């Protein structure tokens, strides 16, 4: 991700079970996004496609994303804590939240019909 180093700002904070706060990292999230197979349906930038919806720049809060990922009964399979840790999921959330805004379609000549 081109701009990733510039946008490693903490996008989410997770309160761990011990009470300590976990500072999320978009850079770590990018790695976790790949290693846990999120890219398979949502694309490497979370852009979405036929297999899964767009995640990039999600407007959902972290808690809602976590609840969905853990317990979904939709087409996406649930990812338990054993499969995907809270820390990794928080990093992934930071990664998808930090995606740059896409260009305006009107500025792309190839999209003019």
């Amino acid at each position, binding site marked *: 991700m081109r701009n990733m180093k510039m946008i490693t700002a903490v996008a989410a904070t997770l309160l761990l079970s011990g009470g300590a706060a976990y500072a999320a990292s978009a850079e770590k999230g990018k790695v976790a996004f790949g290693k846990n*197979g999120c890219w398979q349906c949502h694309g490497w930038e979370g852009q979405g*496609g036929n297999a899964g919806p767009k995640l990039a720049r999600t407007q959902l809060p972290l808690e809602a994303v976590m609840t969905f990922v853990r317990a979904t009964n*939709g087409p996406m*399979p649930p990812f*338990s804590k*054993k499969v995907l840790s809270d820390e990794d999921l928080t990093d992934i959330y930071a990664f998808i939240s930090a995606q740059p805004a896409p260009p305006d*379609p009107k500025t792309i000549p*190839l999209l003019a019909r």
Partner: protein
Amino acid sequence: MTDLNGKDGFDRRKFLTGAAVAGVTPALTQTTPAQAQAAAPRHTPSALPPTTKTIAAETQPPGEETSRIGGKPGSDYMIDVIKTLDIKYAPSNCASSFRALHESMINYGENKSPEYISCMHEESGVGIAHGYFKASGKPLLTMVHGTVGLQHATMAIYNAYCDRVPLIVIGGNDLDAASRPPGVPTFHAAQDINAIVRDYTKWDDTPVTLQHFGQSMVRAYKIAMTPPYGPVAISLDAGLQQEPIHEHGAKLYIPRYVPTSPPQGDSNAVREAAKLLVAAENPVIVADRCARTPNGVKLLIELAELLQCSVVDQGNRMNFPNTHYLYRPAGVVSGADVVMGLELSDFWGTVNSFTDNGENGGVGFNSPRVKPTTKMISITSVDLLTKSNYQDFQRFQTVDVHMAADAETTLPSLIDAVKSAITKERASVIAERVEKAKKAYADIRARDMQAAVVGWDSSPISTARLCMEIYGQIKDLDWSLVSSAGDVSNWPARLWPIEKHHQWLGKSGGYGVGYGAPASVGAALANKELGRFSVSIQSDGDLMFAPGVLWTAAKHKIPLLSVMHNNRAWHQEVMHVQRLSNFRNRKANYGDDMGPIGTMIQNPDIEYHKLAESMGWWAKGPIKDPAQLGPAIKEAVAVVKSGQPALLNVWTQPR
């Protein structure tokens, strides 16, 4: 060899009769082992005295050169029959069991109509015929070795069957166990070679005489070309091909082919359907293989505009222009009060959803997409062709008006019935739908554009960018998207203006992977004659099933632009294993790859551009930077326009 009538040549059947009698005699006379020993040939000297024939050949002036088999070969008559059907090509992989037909095709038939197309794999031969038909509307024949060749061809035949595509498979077979050559020809013969394709062909036959072949071939063509279209198979005895035509008996003739009129919907059912459609407040038409021809597209536009109703094109053919304001995505059925399905392969799946979420004991969850009161109409010719074993008809869906008929053929009478049913009052209601429909279309288009730009500059290249870079280079040509193997999130249908029947040829039918590459070559062969520019979006997994078809394209100078959607995985399967791992609360084992073991095509990465280059293609890659893609496609387009195939190996996002 001299036969019993004193003619040079080899009359196999007479010879066989003689052999059979000779073989039976010792048994009848109870020959003892000792007698058999005594009857065995004595020791033969290493140099035999010359025969009368050899002496004559060596001492007399040469006579007129004659055919060793004597007379006109049976396979020449077969070619005469085939020529009457105007079959342009025979994409095949050579084999001994049809050598006589092969020889007659290229020599006696002068390799024209049909012209032999050299294939590396029988699956490629069938796939080429599949793609050719969808671009041209004309069927091809393919010759295969009776057992092993047909075994190779089976998946492609299944695809053609599910995709309602006519083609004729001729399987060579050496039936006569007493006279066929021992060894390989016997291994490669069987009593009933067609048994392995009978479940997914419309018809098959095993002619036992030349006249029988004449009838079978014309019948096969006629059955294949009567909607619902489908593949047919003829098992062709090697002996029948090789024998000379007998001069005694009735003179051989070639039956005249007259097309069969397709079945049209019952007039009462058509009127009932029209009443429902006209009375509906939100009718939706869903078309899958409705437009068999370009005229089907025109008819569907006429009907949709009469009703001002939404049309969903499921995309197994180009049924409806995606530039029309009534064109809609599949979800529109949720608001429908009447849904009419035209040649749907899956009506149940059109009005219901299935979620593979592990619920219900692991079988998943079903839910309706439509209201309980929604009325349903079905017109499909597939109801006239149902098999028991291979069932491609999907789950059972009750519909209110059900016509076992060809949809395209029924559309004119349905249009007339709709016109008759529209009162002044209903005409006014229908007219009011136009502006709302145009706005809804514009909204959908805007959403697609917004979705396309997310990840626009990504590497690997996004599938939206891939598709639009291609379109940018071909938009001024008479282009034909001959195949879109692999999932590119349906971007061509969402973003390319698809208005002509040949601009979108649909998919494989049976989802047998390995269709895209050969079907592209076959469609490009047809488009070459028709002056169209052929482009395919070629997935990596699909290409590797039988990549030898690249050589066929180069060998026969078939211009085709193949732009690879190389996502380095069998992505359809990636998620299946991931899903099951998660359902079982196990972390999926990726090994050294980026997805579950066994689903990725990486480490090492395949250099498809080198593969294509090695088989005579112009090729370039791997292209990972989206900024380099447009210029590379431009270069490749120029190559294709010069008459050659060109391939670009592009690293892409998964879907």
